[in-house]
C-alpha cells in the first residue's frame, strides 16, 4: 500500500485537532450560556438553608410525611421533593399518604402560593395541625391525633 504523503497526513491531523478544539469551544460557550440562564436549575443549593430550622425539630431517624402544592409528576414537583429529601437526609421523606409516614409532616410550598392559605386548606383536608411555619414555604405539620 502506498504511504500517504506527509501533506495529506499532516493536513488531516491538523483538521482533527482544530475540529476537536472547535467542539470543546462550542461546548464551553453553550455550557456558559446555559449556566447563566439556569444556575442550579433544580434549586438544590437553596434547600439546605430553607430546611435548616425544620431539621432541628426532626429526629435523624424520622420518617417524615411530605405535602406540597407542586405535582410530583411534574419536574418542579419532583425536584422540590428530592431537594427536600437531599436537604433532610438522613431523615426519610415519603408522601404523606404513605403507610410508613410518621406523625410529623413537612409542607414544601412554592413561592407563588400563600403559605398560610394552603397550610390551612391542607390541615383541614388531610387532618393536619400546623406545628410551625418557617417562612420560605416550609411548614411543619403534625397529624391530628398523633402525639
Amino acid at each position, binding site marked *: *500500500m502506498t504511504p500517504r504523503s506527509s501533506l495529506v497526513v499532516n493536513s488531516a491531523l491538523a483538521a482533527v485537532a482544530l475540529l476537536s478544539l472547535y467542539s470543546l469551544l462550542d461546548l464551553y460557550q453553550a455550557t456558559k450560556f446555559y449556566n447563566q440562564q439556569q444556575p442550579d436549575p433544580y434549586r438544590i443549593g437553596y434547600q439546605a438553608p430553607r430546611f435548616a430550622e425544620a431539621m432541628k425539630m426532626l429526629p435523624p431517624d424520622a420518617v417524615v410525611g411530605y405535602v406540597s402544592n407542586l405535582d410530583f409528576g411534574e419536574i418542579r414537583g419532583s425536584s422540590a421533593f428530592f431537594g427536600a*429529601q437531599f436537604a433532610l437526609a438522613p431523615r426519610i421523606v415519603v408522601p404523606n399518604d404513605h403507610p410508613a409516614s410518621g406523625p410529623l409532616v413537612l409542607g414544601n410550598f412554592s413561592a407563588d402560593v400563600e403559605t398560610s392559605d394552603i397550610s390551612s386548606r391542607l390541615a383541614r383536608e388531610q387532618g393536619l395541625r400546623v406545628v410551625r411555619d418557617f417562612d420560605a414555604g416550609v411548614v411543619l405539620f403534625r397529624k391530628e391525633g398523633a402525639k
Partner: protein
Amino acid sequence: MTALALALAAAIGWLAVRILLAGLPRRPRWMAATLEIALGIGAGVAITSSLFFVLLAAGAAQRGVVLGVEAALLSGLAAIAWRRRASHAEEAVPPPPSFRWNWLLALAAGAGIALIVATQVDTARASPHGNWDAFATWNLRAKFLLAPDGQWRNAASELLTRTHPEYPLLLPGFVARTWRLAGEAATPAAPLGTAWLFGGAAIAALAAALALVRGAGAAWLGCLVLFSGASYIDQISWQYADIPLSVYILATTIIVLLSWRYSDRPRAGWLALAGALAGSAAWAKNEGLAFFVLSLACYALITWRSEGAAESIRRGRWWLAGGLPFLALLAAFHLFLAPSGAALRGQTSGAVLARLADPGRYAAVAGAFVTGALEWGRGVSHPAILLGILAVALRFDIARRHRPALWFGAATLALMMVAYVGIYLASPDELSWLLGGSLQRLYAQLWPAAVLLAFVALGAPSDPPPAVAHAKPHKAAAKKARSKR
C-alpha cells in the same frame, strides 16, 4: 481536607497498581508513571470505598478508625512497593514511532484540557450539587451512609422512593468516606472532586496507554477524539457513577491490552488487577456487573482459542481472584441490605416476554440508538467525522500482538451494547422516558474504551522514512559499482 482525603485514596490506589503491574516496561517513563497514577485513582476509590463499607458494617467507621486503617494500608503498600522496586526491570520494547509534529498535537490536547477545565469550573460554580441523579440518588445515599448509629442502612431503604436503593455503593461509599475524613458532611467539594478525579483519570489513562503502545502522537490524537465526544465531557460534573464506570471499563481494557502486548504469558498480578478493576465496575453500577461477566467470558474465550483450555483457566482464576472482594461486597449488599427484588420490580416473565415480542419497541430502541449516536458530538466536529478523517489519513495498522486485545475489547463492548438493548426492551418503564434519560450515559460508559480500541487499530502518525533509504541507485552508478566488483 477534602483534597487530602482524595489524595490519600489516590496514593493507596497508585501503590496497589504499581505493585500489581510489576514488570510494566517504563518507556516513556513519565507516561508509565501517568498510567499508574490514572489507574490508581480508580483502584484507590474502589479500595477505600469498600473499606469504608466494611467498617460501617462492623460499626467502626469513625473518622479516626477510617484514617488509621487507610494510613496503615498506605504504609504497608509503600513498604511492599519499596521492596519490589527492583522488579520494574526494563524490557526490550520497540521504540514508539517518532513524529515531528507531536509537540503541536500535545499543544492542541493541552488547549483542549484547558477548555474542559474552564467548562467544568463554570458548571461547578452554577450547579455545585451536580445533575439530577447526583442529589436524588448518589450523593443522597452518601448522606445516609453518614447517619449516626445503624441508620446508615437506610441508604438502601425501600422507602427511598425512586432513588434506586438497590444500586451498588462504590460512589456513595467513597463520597461518604471523604466527607467523614474531611469533617465536612454534605459539602459539594467531595463529590465534585471525585467527579473531576475520574474525568482526569479517563483522559490520563487513555493518553498514557496509547503513548506506551502506539506512541505520543496517537496519545494526543486519542485525547482529541475523546474530547470531541461532547456529551462525555458534559457529564463529568454531573457527579453520576457512569464516568467512574467508564474509567473501570477503560482500565480493564488497558490492562488486557498491555498484558498481551508485553507477554505471551501475562503475570498473575496483571490479571488480578484486570479482575479487580472489572470487579470495581460491578461495585459501581449494575451495568458494571454485566461488564465483569462479559469481559471475563470474552477474555477466557479468546485465551482458550489462542493458548488452550489450561491457560484460559489459569488466567480466568486470577481474574476472578482480583474481582472476588468486590463481588463478595456486592453479594453481601444484595443479600443483607438492598431491598429484595428491587431490581426486578415484581415483573412477571409473561410481561417481560410480551415486551420482548413487541416489534414497536425494537424500532423505538434502534431509532434512539441512532439518534443518540448522532447527538454524541457537535455537528461537523462529531467523533465519527474525526475518526473517518484519521482512518483515511493514517489507515489501519493492527499489530499482531494487539489483535487478541482488540478482539477482546470489541467483543466486550459489542456485548455490552446488546445487554443495554436487552434491558431497554425488557424494562417496565415508559420506553421513551427511559431512553431519553439514560442512553447518553450508557454511551459514556463505553466511550473511552472505544476510543482506545480505535487508536490501537489505526495507524500511528510517524515521520516518513528518510528519502535516501528509499532512493533507487542511479543506473550508471550501479553499473560502475558492479564493474568494480
